[in-house]
């Protein structure tokens, strides 16, 4: 049996950094306060490899890109995801494009970390799930784990990857605990989703905080005689199409839940995937339960009103399953009822 240790997400991230820095002397960590907050890494690996930076995301990211192309493997901590806006030029225009535009002469093995999500009442300039923006940018990989073991395994995989990887931490998960394998060679491959619970009636897909939301909804659905399969995407790019499609072909129903807004988001991508590659298996319209097209408010009430909740997932799935069963019993086309269900789309997060 693999030896495990119970730890928080924060500790799992730290352990991954420590192990990879020990394993590979080209790995370095840079960020505003990175050295202050992780004195033990400075002690073990030296000030050259663990650096406090000036408060200047554009040059932190730019430096990481230049260094990555030149033999180092930088990890940069950009703190809250919205601060990445300053780093976007280096990440999107340089790291994402210059491998291709140089005809493959350079590669950019770097990891850019940022925190997203609700829970701290900090408002929209700190709380913004902007992961899909980076999914849209060619040349970048994007991961967003939900449990401590995956934080460790995916961060290690990201550091070893020869592509630029955006590593998002949902801040609501930071102090959540779980069992984490001790093994230094423990890796979670980028691009591989995890089936957290098996079921044959509906596929619930989430990532980060909404995996737990889906799990809670799934156990409530059990009481209603509905077996939900729950998929934790873990990687947003590349997407594990096979795992999602395999499940949808089995259940015929797909519900995607994320805190990021719905427009051009991950759920839209999965809906397109299902419609394109599993159309004949679908027994009901694909549902998206997402955050609204609005900045995050600070006030606790408004912040939470924007976040998809298990009750909303439960209600939406009950409605969806009842509707499609009614249709199937009546032999009707599944299209006619779509309008009545469409109100769940986008706004389900608000209903809770």
């Amino acid at each position: 049996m693999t030896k495990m240790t119970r730890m928080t997400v924060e500790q799992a991230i730290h352990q991954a950094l420590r192990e990879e820095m020990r394993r590979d002397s080209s790995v370095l960590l840079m960020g505003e306060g990175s050295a202050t907050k992780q004195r033990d890494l400075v002690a073990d690996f030296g000030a050259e490899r663990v650096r406090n930076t000036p408060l200047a995301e554009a040059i932190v990211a730019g430096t990481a890109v230049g260094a990555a192309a030149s033999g180092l493997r930088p990890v940069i901590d950009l703190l809250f995801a919205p601060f990445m806006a300053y780093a976007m030029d280096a990440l999107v225009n340089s790291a994402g494009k210059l491998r291709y535009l140089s005809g493959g002469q350079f590669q950019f093995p770097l990891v850019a970390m940022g925190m997203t999500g609700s829970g701290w009442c900090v408002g929209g300039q700190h709380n913004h799930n902007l992961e899909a923006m980076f999914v849209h940018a060619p040349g970048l990989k994007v991961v967003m784990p939900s449990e401590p073991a995956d934080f460790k395994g995916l961060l290690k995989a990201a550091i070893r990857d020869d592509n630029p990887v955006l590593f998002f931490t949902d801040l609501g998960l930071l102090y959540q605990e779980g069992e984490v394998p001790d093994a230094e060679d423990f890796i979670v491959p980028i691009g591989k989703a995890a089936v957290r619970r098996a079921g044959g009636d509906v596929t619930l897909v989430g990532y980060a905080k909404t995996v737990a939301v889906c799990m809670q909804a799934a156990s409530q659905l059990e009481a209603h005689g509905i077996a939900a399969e729950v998929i934790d995407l873990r990687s947003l790019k590349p997407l594990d199409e096979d795992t999602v499609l395999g499940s949808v072909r089995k259940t015929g129903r797909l519900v995607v839940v994320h805190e990021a807004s719905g427009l051009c988001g991950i759920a839209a991508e999965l809906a397109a995937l299902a419609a394109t590659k599993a159309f004949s298996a679908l027994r009901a319209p694909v549902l998206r339960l997402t955050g609204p097209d609005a900045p995050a408010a600070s006030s606790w009430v408004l912040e939470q009103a924007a976040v998809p909740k298990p009750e909303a997932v439960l209600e939406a799935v009950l409605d969806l399953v009842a509707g499609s069963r009614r249709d199937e019993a009546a032999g009707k086309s599944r299209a006619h009822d779509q309008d009545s269900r469409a109100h769940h789309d986008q706004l389900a997060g608000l209903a809770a």
Partner: protein
Amino acid sequence: MPEENRAAFHRLETMLLIRAYEHQLVELQRTGAPGTCTSVGQEACAVGVVEALDARDRIVTNHRSAGHLIARGAEPRRLMAEVLGRVDGYCGGRSGSLHISAKELGVVLTSTIVGGELSMAPGVALAQKMGAGNSEPGGIVAVFFGDGAACEGIFHEALNLAVQWQLPLLFVCENNQWQAFVHRLETMPDKAISAWARGHGLPVDSVDGNDVDAVHAAAARAVAHIRATGGPAFLELSTYRQRGHYEPDDQAYVDSAELQAWLQRDPIRMQGERLTAKGLIDAAGLAALELRVRETIATALDFAQASAWPTPDTLLEHVYA
């Protein structure tokens, strides 16, 4: 009482009010309210500069804005309601503490993105200069930012534009020595901020940011220059962030000797001593002032806690025009 003394007295009272307000926020955080970035130790910067502005002027500020707002006349009760996320807050609870703006006071745009304030201020000044909106002739803009913001490239972009376009903009750098958990000497040469500003070719003044009278005098000179020439000016205020970056923060990374030295130069204490030395106030007078601001804050707290939460059905209000 001569006008000069009345002003000095008023500065002390405003600084006390800011301090009492932020101490109340610290208490609230301990009982579960969202954490805030306090400006304890920097009150003289806010009070001295804001007093040098007049009603037609605009203020652009950042995450550490309580002093600027209160000095400008913001009601502690509405600020507190905002921090608690209630409907009676200046932004209806949407902002919380980090991005409070109050158009009615001329505190027009507040960004908690470090450098965000610097990116927007030239545009506000351009609108003032062009007489747009409800701006009045001669109005200027004061932008407050920290030493950390001076590390962002946007700092230079804003300075260059303001100089080239001759915008009526007062840059106010509150150099409180800290950039979150990193001391500024780890990220920049000691005299860098003023030197960088000078390099852009605008008048630069560096003063003791804990001496409220000195801050006011320097700000008044800079404002007069801007009104006379239409072009920008720069003020570096040397001060100290006495508390953590935000609440809670154990300040384990802070050199206690440095902190102690600055506590000896606390701006409120310095102003209290100055007024005492001039015979303008005594211990009883000071105690009475402190009591008065404490009462104001207690009333504000009652108001804020009684204020309603926004209802979820208002979530999508104000996203688009």
